[in-house]
């Protein structure tokens, strides 16, 4: 074999490794989740019973699925006004200026702050604020975690949508200006319709981020294994129940936690694929 062949084989094998890695991940999660799905069947997804008492063990993931979706959707809603404004700032109002560069760097820094530091800040700064405002007594809960999550996903939503807003052709905007439009009208009637699918995609990807966040949510959601009844109620998410209970889990409980991991893997995988699909269609 000559050098060229060897090089090509090495490159190919290393790509193959990625394929095996992904296949191995799916296989391991499925394999680990089988005992739980065998025992509880569909009830695992549709039951909210979580009882580790020996002898009458019963595990259902519904309350965690609801908790995850609720915090993530609320986080997305809270994130939209901030990140949309920031992406207009970066992509339209101050496009390619020094001040946009500074704001962009600050937004990037948001992505660099570790999850556990967000959790600490939420615990010692935001939680007392929520208590003082009288939303709920202990300050833990869906809303508190969603608020922190919404800050954490700002950079993911902003960086992509600002790029897409930047790419809106100048001719389209100039046509509107020539009709006497104000900049606000150009944004609402030209930029948003043109960049709509890209902006939607960036929010879908940010939503995918929120689904899997662990530490900050664990520190703020209250870790109660119940379906939350309101936005200020405590709850638990899929990621945080794994983080809290995986360490001492064995047997059926371990399998149930792996099954929750599998569900989380699937949900984030689907959400991210939809986002990427929309983006790939754009280019």
């Amino acid at each position, binding site marked *: 074999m000559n050098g060229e062949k060897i090089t090509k084989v090495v490159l190919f094998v290393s790509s193959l490794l990625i394929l095996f890695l992904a296949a191995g991940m799916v296989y391991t999660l499925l394999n680990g989740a089988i005992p739980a799905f065998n025992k509880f069947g569909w009830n695992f997804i549709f039951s909210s019973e979580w009882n580790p008492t020996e002898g009458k063990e019963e595990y259902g993931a519904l309350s965690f699925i609801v908790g995850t979706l609720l915090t993530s959707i609320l986080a997305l809603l809270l994130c939209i006004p901030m990140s949309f404004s920031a992406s207009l700032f970066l992509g339209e109002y101050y496009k390619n200026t020094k001040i946009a560069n500074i704001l962009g760097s600050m937004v990037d820094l948001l992505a660099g702050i570790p999850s556990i530091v967000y959790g*600490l800040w939420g615990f010692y700064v935001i939680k007392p604020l929520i208590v003082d405002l009288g939303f709920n007594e202990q300050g833990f809960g869906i809303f508190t975690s969603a608020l922190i999550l919404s800050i954490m996903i700002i950079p993911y939503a902003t960086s992509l949508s600002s790029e897409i807003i930047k790419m809106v052709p100048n001719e389209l905007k100039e046509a509107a200006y020539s009709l006497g439009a104000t900049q606000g009208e150009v944004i609402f009637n030209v930029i948003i319709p043109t960049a709509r699918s890209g902006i939607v995609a960036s929010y879908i990807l940010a939503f995918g981020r929120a689904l899997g966040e662990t530490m900050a949510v664990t520190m703020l959601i209250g870790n109660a294994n119940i379906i939350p009844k309101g936005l200020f109620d405590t709850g638990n998410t899929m990621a945080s129940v794994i983080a809290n209970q995986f360490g001492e889990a064995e047997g059926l409980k371990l399998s149930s936690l792996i099954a929750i991991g599998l569900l989380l893997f699937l949900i984030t995988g689907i959400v991210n694929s939809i986002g990427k699909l929309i983006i790939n269609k754009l280019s």
Partner: protein
Amino acid sequence: MGKIRYNKIQTNGFSFRLVKNKVFFCFVIFMSMIAISPVVFIIIKLIIKGIRQINLNFFIDVAPNTLEAMTAIANGEIIPGGIANGITGSILMVLLASVMAIPVGILTGIYLSENQDKIFANIIRNISEILQGVPSIVLGILSYLWIVINITKGFSAFAGSVSLSIMMLPLIIKSTEETLKMIPSTIKEAALSLGVPYHKVIFKVLLPTGLGGLLTGILLAISRVLGETAPLMITALGSSVINFDITKPTSAVPLLIWEFYNDPNLLDLVWSSSLFLMGFVLMLNIIVKRIANKWVYG
């Protein structure tokens, strides 16, 4: 692409439209400031609360136990000890993760950029993008099932670094591919036309030309995994001593933060260790920006 609505632009009712425009502009500025304010608030909070604890001992001592901290608080002294076990553990695990992730990541990135339109390359590209979205806690579960149960038979630094390396892989693959794509094909063709063998073109022409981009990707990946806590909780577990044995439980800075957070007596250390971790991560980010500006775009 949605329908552009030129017909919605009405030129009568002059002043009200201008007011609306101004109000929306102010809203955008205000919300943008709100969006970035957490960075400032968090940094200020960490500095005010944490700077007092940062001294030489903070870097060379291991974390104190509850009793030592209680005595110190009772005597009105600052808590003794530091985060040396966390720093060494973080270095050990991130180094190990880099050793595993960088070669595979770069080689795969080269494969993807050299075989743009092949179906297999497309599959790998999509898989890598899905891997990037996998929550870190799920990577922790996988590393637990693979390494903790089967290989090291217990919590270990190796298990921690495997979960970190899976996190780093897609980031490195993506940055390598993007960097190599930007290199003009004429450079590669010039080398090939001189009769330079293919592997030499890759290692002597493509990689050196794209070095800035590759370095940026690697440092960014490292800065992302440095602060990871969740996967390490269920793989490396933590340790109260400095440990360099990769088959033994090992601590890391974020793990120590988690421990301090859960122990009311050690609370003061939470801020200083968070300040240290965040300062380090932000510094890496700034270095990345510098490199990117200098080598990739300059």
